[in-house]
């Protein structure tokens, strides 16, 4: 009796765990079925090489490059801002700051990631862009710079918190060894701690990149909705995510071309984040083994 009960419980717990697999399968199926439909109408070569993305206009082009460049540009700006700042914060918090300071400041910083992104979009559009325009004349009111910077603010805690965790996880014995040899805190940080925590730090950066690439509302609101192949941060661009939102705001009729394009765009996004996630998972696994 008791054994049976235990078995039933175990099976239902397992079932719950398997639901997560179903979700992934669902995502992959949904995206690929619609994408296959899409690619039966549009050649994959065009999709990858055509420099224009105008699927909704009468002269249709289906080149993902403009959306991709918009995505990469905004993400690059965000990362370029967030990595140095986030890393410095993590090193400061883990190697310099008193514990009590760390304890209060960490959750406060994490609030930066908790702010709903639609709010950040508002911030970028209403505050940051006008501010930047005051010393970058000719800057468009939709641009990747301000969206990227604000996105950078949003992802700071991903880097600072996770890198701090990684630094914190380095056995204290290494820290003691370094200090015991007469290192300053800076030498200890950069010569011993950062190399020892490098995998965790890399994971945090990858996660931040993946967040930036998948971020939607900030870029949909503040970066503009104009797919163009450019790396000029002062003009409007459109990201993959913003495109999906743009189309979704209208009616997305099943079987229509618009419907398929958002799935084609979606699968591109998915592939990118999937690769990043897989890499970071691998690194994380290795890293865990190191200190167990």
């Amino acid at each position, binding site marked *: 009796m008791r054994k049976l009960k235990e078995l039933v419980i*175990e099976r239902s717990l397992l079932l719950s765990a398997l639901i997560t697999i179903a979700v992934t399968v669902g995502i992959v199926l949904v995206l690929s079925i619609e994408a296959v439909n899409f690619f039966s109408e549009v050649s994959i070569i065009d999709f990858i090489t055509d420099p224009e993305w105008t699927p909704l206009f009468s002269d249709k082009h289906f080149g993902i490059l403009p959306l991709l460049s918009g995505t990469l540009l905004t993400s690059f700006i965000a990362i370029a801002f967030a990595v140095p700042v986030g890393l410095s914060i993590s090193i400061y918090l883990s190697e310099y700051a008193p514990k009590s300071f760390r304890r209060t400041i960490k959750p406060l910083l994490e609030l930066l990631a908790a702010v709903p992104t639609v709010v950040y979009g508002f911030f970028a559009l209403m505050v940051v862009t006008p501010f930047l325009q005051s010393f970058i004349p000719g800057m468009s009111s939709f641009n990747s710079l301000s969206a990227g910077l604000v996105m950078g603010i949003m992802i700071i805690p991903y880097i600072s918190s996770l890198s701090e965790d990684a630094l914190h996880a380095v056995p204290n014995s290494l820290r003691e060894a370094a200090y015991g040899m007469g290192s300053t805190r*800076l030498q200890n940080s950069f010569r011993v701690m950062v190399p020892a925590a490098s995998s965790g730090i890399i994971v945090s950066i990858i996660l931040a990149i993946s967040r930036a690439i998948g971020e939607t509302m900030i870029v949909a609101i503040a970066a503009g909705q104009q797919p163009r192949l450019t790396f000029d941060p002062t003009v409007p661009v459109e990201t993959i995510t913003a495109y999906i939102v743009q189309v979704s705001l209208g009616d997305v009729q099943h079987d229509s071309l618009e419907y398929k394009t958002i799935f084609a765009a979606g699968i591109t996004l998915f592939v990118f984040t999937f690769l990043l996630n897989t890499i970071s998972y691998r690194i994380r696994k290795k890293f865990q083994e190191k200190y167990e």
Partner: protein
Amino acid sequence: MNNIRKNRLKDQAFKIWGIFCTLLGLVLLAVFIGNILVDGIMRIDWEFVMNLPSRKPEKAGIYTALMGSIWVLLLTTLIALPVGIAAAIYLEEYSKKNKLSTILEVNISNLAGVPSIIYGLLGLEVFVRILEMGASVLAGSFTLALLILPIVIVSTREALKAVPKSIRDASFAMGASKWQTVYHQLLPASFGGILTGIILALSRAVGETAPLIVIGALAYVPFAPSSAMDEFSVLPIQIFNWITRPQHGFVENAAAAIIILLLITFVMNGIAVYFRNKWQKKFK
């Protein structure tokens, strides 16, 4: 001698830089919140909370969006919680290290990194179209539930992990079965941690906009949902809608609604941090 001096100086310089960076994030947050407060605080009153949407900014309120958010949160919790906690218990307490557990693990870590808009596409196809839920509260809740499922699982696992192994040892050694150990010891002991994770997950769900736009949540819904199949709007969508209105009055409304949304998010985060601190002490 000189070298040691120089090293000390560099050390001090980095310390100052570190403090600067740390404060930079916070100051930006403060500037931003200050800005919004200036824009919106005067707009907030009881009427603003209780009014229906309106074409006149000064008459418009967030009642329906707020009720929509509450509905979505409740349903999302109902859906994600049992599944998430059960899956976490399975992975942490039952599964042996084998192919399946590795697959599950990789899979969950991947799901956690899937952009929210992709969940929107999944919800659109599966819940809205195939299961014919339409752009209903239920479809939205299912979509968000899948979105936060990995977060719930990961944080529940962390909470279970934090229960010292000695508690499991003690319980097993007393002749308790696996489920008895989970039910009598592990769940009560990790309750604080699980709660923390769930509140954090929900505070993420309450701010999600993109997936709900994708599944087709509406712009003008002048009534609160009364069933799970009703159409709905939520706070972030209402904000998005107001940001995109031309009249200045709506920008004020957006700011005011943002204050309320931030308040909800921050309070949830605060509660979560409180529980986390309280709970972490238990095992120290």
